[in-house]
């Protein structure tokens, strides 16, 4: 489950969100988008001009990248796409979900897990101890609650923004 979430990527085109994943099979990239899968490839022709192949279609496009923004000129029109990781989308869905999880502030390794699923915690309690850039760091509970799950074991490596621990959601009273 966890692996699948990591594979998916969120892009926005204008105000619309698009969730995709890209896989490499027998040296061909496959793009999965809205339930359909398409073999895709990109060949650079000159500095900013590329040939884009998507399934049977082939288009000459202009392409430029700046940070997380992708500028694509296709069929006479320029479009802007912004790459956002999958996690940031969940953040914007509900303000409260941010309080339900403990996220990795940077890439690193899990050193120690002082709590177990089902344990009650108070805001500020140590939940995960990590090592990153040769420094040990304690990640603390964002609020008082109960540990729902821990996604990693001691020794596991993780990327920035990975959810390391989750709290049981608060019940509306």
């Amino acid at each position, binding site marked *: 489950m966890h*692996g699948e979430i*990591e*594979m998916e*990527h969120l*892009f926005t*085109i*204008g105000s*619309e969100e*698009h969730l*995709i*994943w*890209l*896989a*490499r*099979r*027998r040296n061909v*990239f*496959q*793009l*999965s*988008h*809205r*339930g*359909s*899968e*398409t073999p*895709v*490839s*990109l060949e650079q022709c000159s*500095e*900013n*001009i*590329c040939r*884009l192949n*998507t399934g049977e*279609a082939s*288009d000459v*496009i*202009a*392409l*430029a*990248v*700046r940070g997380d923004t*992708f*500028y*694509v*000129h*296709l*069929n*006479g*029109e*320029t*479009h*802007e*796409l912004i*790459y956002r*990781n999958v996690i940031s989308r969940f953040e914007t869905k509900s303000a409260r979900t941010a309080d339900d999880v403990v996220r990795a502030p940077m890439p690193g390794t899990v050193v120690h897990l002082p709590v177990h699923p089902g344990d009650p915690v108070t805001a500020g309690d140590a939940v995960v101890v990590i090592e990153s850039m040769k420094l040990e760091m304690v990640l603390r509970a964002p609020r008082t609650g109960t540990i729902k799950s821990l996604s990693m074991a001691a020794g596991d490596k993780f990327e920035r923004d990975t959810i390391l621990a989750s709290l049981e959601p608060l019940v509306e009273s």
Partner: protein
Amino acid sequence: MSTDARTPLSFRSVLIANRGEIAVRIIRTLRKLGLEACIAHHAIDKNTPAVAMADRAVEIEAASPVAAYLDAAQIVRAAGTIGAEAIHPGYGFLSENASFARAVVNAGLTFVGPPAETIALMGDKIRARALAAASEIPVAPSAIEDDDPAGFVERVRALGAPILVKPAAGGGGKGMRIVRDLSLLDDEIQRARSEALRYFGDGRLFAERYIENPRHIEVQILADAYGNTVHLFERECSLQRRFQKVVEESPSPSLTKEQRSNICAAAVGIAKVSGYCNAGTVEFVCSDNEFFFLEMNTRLQVEHAVTEMITGLDLVSEQLRIASGQALGYGQTDIRTTGHAIEARIYAEDASRDFLPTTGPILALQVPKGAGIRVDIGVAQGQTITAAFDPMLAKLIAHGPDRTDALEALRAALAGFVLLGCKTNCAFLRRLLDDADVRRGHMHTGLIAESPSLLREPKVSDDTARKLLAAAALSCREVRDAAEAIPAMHAEMNAWRN
């Protein structure tokens, strides 16, 4: 009719007191005529094409970039330092500043434009209007309350509906009332007066005939110092946003042959009575059956290129020859036009956000080419578009045998204009050219404001989205890394899962 390569001009070196596309365009003509091109520029423009193309460049300084281009004394000094003998002001900035024109002449240099007195006359809208009226050139019927306060209401009534009543001290559309039913005139005048008092602390009013769905039509004039005045026909500039033109064309699709000849004659008339000399443009506001003098612009217009495309004349070359004291050397009947030309202005702005100016680096730039396509552009790849200046980046001009061909060529040219890194109005311009009323030539200055659907960006289709996402995903480090990290077997399983 070729007017180039004749008698040498009275100056060999010309300083351009401007920037961007118009500076590039002026340099092109200076090259053609074998003149030295000098440019005065603010440091922010150091890496722009105009500065790179110029034979000599001199830096001007000020608290802000715009202030540098408005510093008349410094620019005249710069011309002296660099050894230029004439100054071309382009459009905007100091181009219609009478004291600048005077300072240039007083420094012993040639000003490429009309005499300072003409600039001052036409810059005074009330004097210009009075001059036009005295010369029997139609001006919108109007009534100024101050002229005879007791008879004001009756004078307004005599204008005939619809009438626009506005505060004499006003501006920005505040306190303006349109009266379409004359039986309501007394009430509307009272309301306008109380609003004028509230907004401006001055209840005096001014009224003029209001034109419903007005069109903006202007006439290009050339006049030499020997009393020869010709027109180069009209340009229709009715497609405007925020009172600024976005698309201009010639000939106008909305004038009859008779209207065209009347409006051009009126323009020549106002140029003659004002003793005009050099290139100028007389602007009119038009309804279906009337036209009224609006103002005269005493400079080269942004949209002069459409006139060049249909007449084959180089207006900058004509300006330089006239400023140099040469006679036109041709008369009205020598001026012939071929086909139709349309220009679209490319702005760094977001049409979907009410034309908010945009900024950003130009990561990639590709301009369309082809027969009948002209691109006047002042920016280059690698340059960053800032908010320091007007957001116009380029003009695309298409010339074709008729309007339909020219529109189609312009549409294709817009599709081939690639500027990545800073949002432009290109997609909006294509939607505008596809508008049914625009295609039929039924335009008025409120068309864009009344068509909010033109501003909205349509949703991309699933097919387009998939292509865009493929391009972005394949050039996104994180996505590629993730794809490489998935073991082949895992990827196979995912494929089966669906």
